[in-house]
């Protein structure tokens, strides 16, 4: 299973955010997309998720034999700002969510336990949840939908240390069946969980040389690459 991005271009007015960006992502790997602020990481994710139209290029899903455009069920995105119904309790939301998506093999309690939402918080309104808890729910929604391609936009920035650790473990456990793309500014996270690091710089995607990922050179080589041409 592959996700192919071919010559993707997207601009806002005169500002070209993505310029002929191309890359192939494969199943079983976690990719960290690194780039400076405004480099276009969220734009890239929105294009893949179908939320943004792009001027040219193709985004294709390949199962090894055939290639086709992505469908809604192929992709799940966890955005930085959670979008949730504020007047449902966390339990109700997940209970209804699994019903609507037909994922009733686990109970709502089991799903909530997966992201360490405590039973005492089950019946609180989502509007009273902290930002981190809302993010957990959103990530959980993505897990329940179980799409082939998972896009995580700044996934761990609002989680506490314990949940961050759990989510990292979860991502590593899930990766064999999925293609996971994660945008982050946290270099340590990128290094800990990613199999490959992809730089989004000047509108183009490029893979970091695996040799540069060794401990001593890691940070310096990324900064050098992102400064190049700036």
């Amino acid at each position, binding site marked *: 299973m592959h996700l192919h991005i071919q010559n993707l271009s997207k601009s*806002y*007015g*005169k*500002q070209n955010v993505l310029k002929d960006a191309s890359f192939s992502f494969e199943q079983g790997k976690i990719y960290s997309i690194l780039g400076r602020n405004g480099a276009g990481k969220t734009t890239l994710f929105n294009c893949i998720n*179908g*939320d*943004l*139209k792009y001027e040219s290029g193709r985004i294709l899903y390949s199962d090894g034999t055939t290639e086709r455009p992505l469908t*809604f*069920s192929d992709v*799940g995105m966890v955005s930085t*700002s959670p*979008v*949730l*119904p*504020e*007047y*449902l*309790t966390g*339990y*109700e*939301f997940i209970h*209804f*969510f699994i*019903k*609507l*998506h037909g994922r009733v093999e686990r109970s709502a309690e089991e799903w909530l336990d997966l992201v360490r939402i405590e039973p005492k918080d*089950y*019946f*609180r*309104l989502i*509007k009273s949840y902290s930002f981190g808890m809302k993010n957990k729910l959103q990530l959980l*929604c993505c897990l329940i*939908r179980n799409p082939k391609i998972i896009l995580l936009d700044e996934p761990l920035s609002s989680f506490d240390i314990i949940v961050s650790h759990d989510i990292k473990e979860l991502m590593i456990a899930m990766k064999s069946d999925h293609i996971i793309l994660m945008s982050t500014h946290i270099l340590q996270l990128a290094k800990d969980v990613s199999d490959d690091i992809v730089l989004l710089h000047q509108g183009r995607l490029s893979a970091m040389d695996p040799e540069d990922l060794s401990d001593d050179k890691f940070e310096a080589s990324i900064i050098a690459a992102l400064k190049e041409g700036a």
Partner: protein
Amino acid sequence: MRNLLTYIRIRFSMQTNAFLYYLSKLPVIRLFIPQNVYRYTLPKILVSAFGFILDFVKNSLVSNLATVLFMYWIPGTIMQALGREEAANALLYAFFFITVRCFLPALENSRLFAPVRDDILFLNHFMMDPEIWYRQKFIKILWDNGIMTAPALIYVLRDGYLVFCLVCINLAAIAAGDYLSLMIFQRKSKIPERKKRWNVSVLLMLVLYASCIFLNFPDKIPDPWILAGIGAAALAICVAFCIPIFSFRDYKTVAVAFASGIKPVFVVQKISGREYDEFNLKEEDETVHMTQFQNLKHLDSWNYFDRILKRRMRKAFRNQIIQSIISNTISAVVCGLLFRYQVFGLKNSNILQYSTFMITTVIGMTYGRSFLELCFRNMDAPLLYHHFYDAAMIRISLLRRFRFLMLNGSLLLVIAMADVCIFLMTAGTWLPAYKLLTFGIVFALIFFIFETFHLIAYYLLQPFTMDCTVKSPLFTIVNKTEGLLSYGILFIRGDITNFLIPLAIMSLLAFSGFLAVLHISPSTFKIRT
């Protein structure tokens, strides 16, 4: 439709929770509401069942009353006024059903694209597949707007075959209208502006009603087999249009364009993200920003933001005024005709008894609340967040907004008075000059009280968080009370000039409140967390 019960439960669970939440914020009452109140499911299931039945009855009633009104009552009244009662027969009513209730709504509004709250709830929050969601939505549209009009048709026509035929034609019109919109969207990535379509369909409706002068339909209803044949043909057309609607694959794009967020804008209505862009609020070219900055950089931050906001919103401001003029003129003409032809016992002799309707109309024209929400979204939120506001600037902003709302109120007052004149002329009567002057003063006081009240509520309660969610239950209660008050006035009978003294007293109170808020606003005007 297997998810129908879940949809209903979600909708009503949210409503029940929101109700309990607001109750839990009220003094005294909150003492009786336990912390874990949201965990009990039985009350929510009962509310869901009750709410569903209530919604069903309400929707059916609205749909059927509208059908009776447009196909039967209006043409019947016009025929009566023209002295052509004998020409008002079943086929005439069927003609008006087909034109005014089937084809004009299909032309005016694509029901599939029209954003509803459920779109956001289920597409964004519950991540439903847009293809599944829009197909289900379309079935609901066919049911609500097509099949549910049958009781009204049976009541008016009392002929099963004719009713069957008309329901099928309605279904075909709905399907054709949405198919057309879908095709236009596919080709141009947008659909024609709703306001234009509305104007065209209102104009056509007036032309159709005017054609009552010469419309003549035979008294005899066609044979059942002809009606059944037409119905079957219409049904086949409906199916033919439904097939591409159901097999359409790109509903994700439709969802992104139309259900990405129902955004309140200056015009007091909810619009889709796509229409939001049509108001010229989308991202502008950076050169525009640069030129603006060069021209206005001498201003302080508040004035700069204020000027930019008003420049960017000018189309919306203009639309608001035009919308007021059009809708009020239509209302004035229709109400004038009711009095002229003495419908429902309305007569020129009791015209002042019903003048309280004008209070509700004028309250409906005020726009302080929408304007201030817009100010928060585009200006106050970033300024407050980045600590640009100090005590002096908060007071200055309050005074300038007061001036702005009063100036706009003056313009709306002129429109309201013009509408009174149109209404009186259409009704074929007139009022003494001193009465008209008192009307003007009453309207001016209403504008003053309500716009000042909106300002006071905004600066005193500042209800919004950074993401523009209302966090003040008191603000919500105040708004609902204002809505109920406007509605309640409709039931009061009497000359509105009698309201002059109470309104004058309320104005003094509002002004005192304004002065008090001017004094304390620096400590109350903060971002809610």
